[in-house]
């Protein structure tokens, strides 16, 4: 897509096609002879893994839709929707496996996307000239969250139902228009059959929108080319290798390893990431004692609950995602890779731990004690030894990290950055010996 094309059609047919629709040329230039930095490490394989995840979700989803009934109307044992999911699990040939692949596939998709995003932050892949690439990625992430949420509603179990109730009610927090928006989303005065019908329609639509934005994402990647662990731009041909076979093989190997993890969930612990309450048919009159979202939403859920005011809580939760969009204008450091930014790296590592702990908070009830044996005492409105306060402190760091990055990117003194990708290898280390060795190990 950028630079000079090296594709040479060999047969009469490909020559004929190339002058009419140069699609083979496009594929060749994008995925065969695309010049790729030669120092990409395994963190860079998650783009390919994510494409694989999207493919798996679409393929299994299309098949599941052939058997699923999107109706909340009551039927013996639950509803038509709930029963059709059980029908898929028990009666449809291979249905249990296809559904478990689809359900666990969502978790695998999010696992991969979080690694992909942390990779982007650590190595500064969002920085100029890749801001649009980063923002397109954020849009994909938003679409993924919407798709996953609506997909979780479809089995019409208790968690499905009350997940839908809580998330749609988030919009009710908006002043003035809140109530009209929730009524419009529901198609009624509560989450009900019309809600389920439209969620199914949108759950089928959004993955194809994701696929469309993925095409733009790859396009925006191929204009400036890949970032790399050193964060210095490609200077010459010596810095690159062709995408095929070097990265097709590396990505392929990573995919196989990833699929082993995927399969171990599907075949050995298919419900480990789910919740037993979702095998209870939806009942609008009883909320399960402990409702939690899927694991990949837990950090945001913890931020929502940490704030005592409804509207502020909702705004903080959306803000936690929204802040990613402006990251290129928060972190202004000219040095891309945090390998050469020891202070930023320290705050980044704390940020990862912070996100994981926020997830832990989201999985507990707000009043649960962190240390069971410690009585603690009430500070302002809640016990200091409760997940409420832990979420507040962690939530503060979540946003504080971006504030720190903003100021740090002006004040810090980065370590010397190598002239080019090849230079440290060809001309000896540009850094003190220890620093290079350490950086290499990280890769």
């Amino acid at each position, binding site marked *: 897509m950028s630079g000079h094309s090296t594709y040479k059609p060999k047969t009469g047919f490909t020559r004929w096609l190339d002058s009419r629709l140069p699609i083979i040329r496009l594929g060749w230039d994008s995925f065969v002879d695309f010049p790729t930095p030669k120092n990409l490490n395994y963190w860079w394989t998650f783009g390919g893994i994510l494409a694989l995840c999207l493919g798996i979700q679409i393929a299994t989803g299309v098949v599941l839709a052939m058997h699923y009934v999107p109706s909340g109307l009551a039927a013996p044992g639950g509803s038509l929707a709930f029963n059709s999911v059980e029908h898929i699990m028990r009666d449809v040939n291979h249905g249990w496996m296809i559904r478990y692949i689809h359900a666990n596939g969502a978790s695998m998709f999010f696992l991969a996307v979080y690694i992909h995003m942390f990779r982007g932050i650590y190595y500064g892949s969002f920085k100029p000239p890749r801001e649009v690439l980063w923002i397109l990625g954020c849009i994909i992430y938003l679409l993924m969250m919407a798709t996953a949420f609506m997909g979780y509603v479809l089995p019409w179990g208790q968690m499905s139902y009350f997940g839908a109730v809580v998330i749609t009610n988030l919009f009710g927090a908006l002043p003035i228009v809140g109530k009209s928006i929730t009524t419009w989303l529901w198609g009624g005065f509560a989450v*009900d059959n019309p809600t389920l019908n439209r969620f199914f329609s949108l759950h089928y639509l959004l993955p194809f929108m994701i696929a469309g934005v993925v095409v733009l994402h790859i396009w925006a990647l191929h204009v400036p080319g890949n970032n790399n662990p050193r964060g210095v731009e490609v200077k010459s041909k010596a810095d690159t290798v062709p995408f095929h076979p070097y990265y097709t093989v590396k990505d392929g190997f990573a995919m196989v390893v990833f699929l082993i993890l995927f399969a171990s969930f599907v075949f050995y612990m298919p419900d480990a990431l789910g919740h037993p309450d979702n095998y209870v048919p939806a009942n609008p009159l009883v909320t399960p004692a402990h409702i939690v979202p899927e694991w990949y939403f837990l950090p945001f859920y913890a931020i929502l609950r940490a704030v005592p005011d409804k509207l502020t809580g909702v705004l903080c939760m959306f803000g936690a995602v929204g802040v990613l969009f402006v990251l290129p204008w928060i972190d202004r450091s000219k040095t891309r890779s945090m390998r050469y930014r020891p202070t930023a790296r320290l705050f980044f590592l704390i940020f990862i731990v912070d996100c994981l702990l926020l997830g832990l908070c989201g999985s507990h009830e707000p009043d649960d004690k962190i240390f069971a044996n410690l009585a603690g005492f009430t500070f302002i409105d809640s016990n200091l030894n409760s997940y409420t306060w832990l979420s507040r402190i962690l939530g503060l760091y979540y946003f504080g990290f971006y504030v720190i990055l903003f100021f740090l990117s002006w004040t810090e003194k980065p370590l010397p950055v190598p002239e080019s990708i090849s230079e440290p290898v060809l001309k000896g280390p540009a850094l003190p010996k220890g620093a290079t060795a350490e950086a290499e190990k990280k890769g």
Partner: protein
Amino acid sequence: MANTVVESYPPTEHGADDPNRRDFIHIAAATAAVGGVAVFAWPLIDEMNPSADVLALASIEFDLSKVSLGQQVVVKWQGKPVFVRYRTPKEIAEAVKDDNAPMKDPATDASRHKPGKAQYLILVGVCTHLGCVPNFGLGDYGGWLCPCHGSVYDTAGRIRKGPAPLNLLMPNYAFTSDTKIKIG
């Protein structure tokens, strides 16, 4: 720089055709297209609002003698749970005692039930935070505790603690006889 520009279209007042006519056509065409899309989009958006059968007036009757002292019965009305609670004298006294306590959404106990029917509390069983169904008899005030985000309601359904902004809503209802109510 100026000497390299080919001035084939000099921006003088009489040199070019009057640009206003062409601008007008562009603006008119764009307006018609945007207007057309908007007119077509509205039905596609409004289609998601409640349909006629959902809107059809739905009211239910309920016989209060089905609820025994100290208990609660949950009935479904417009797809939502409605709590019908038969309060004990102790619960009423506790609620009245707190009438002047600091609250997020101040209300007296008397405003939460029909006159002379203090024992019957009829409330929409939807947490005003994010819509979960609060659990009966739990929480610091013996009213309700929402399992989702920990909102605590007292025995008059008033919000006392947690993220919910408002008291549990009261549906429109009326006593049709001494022990029967009509909700909606």
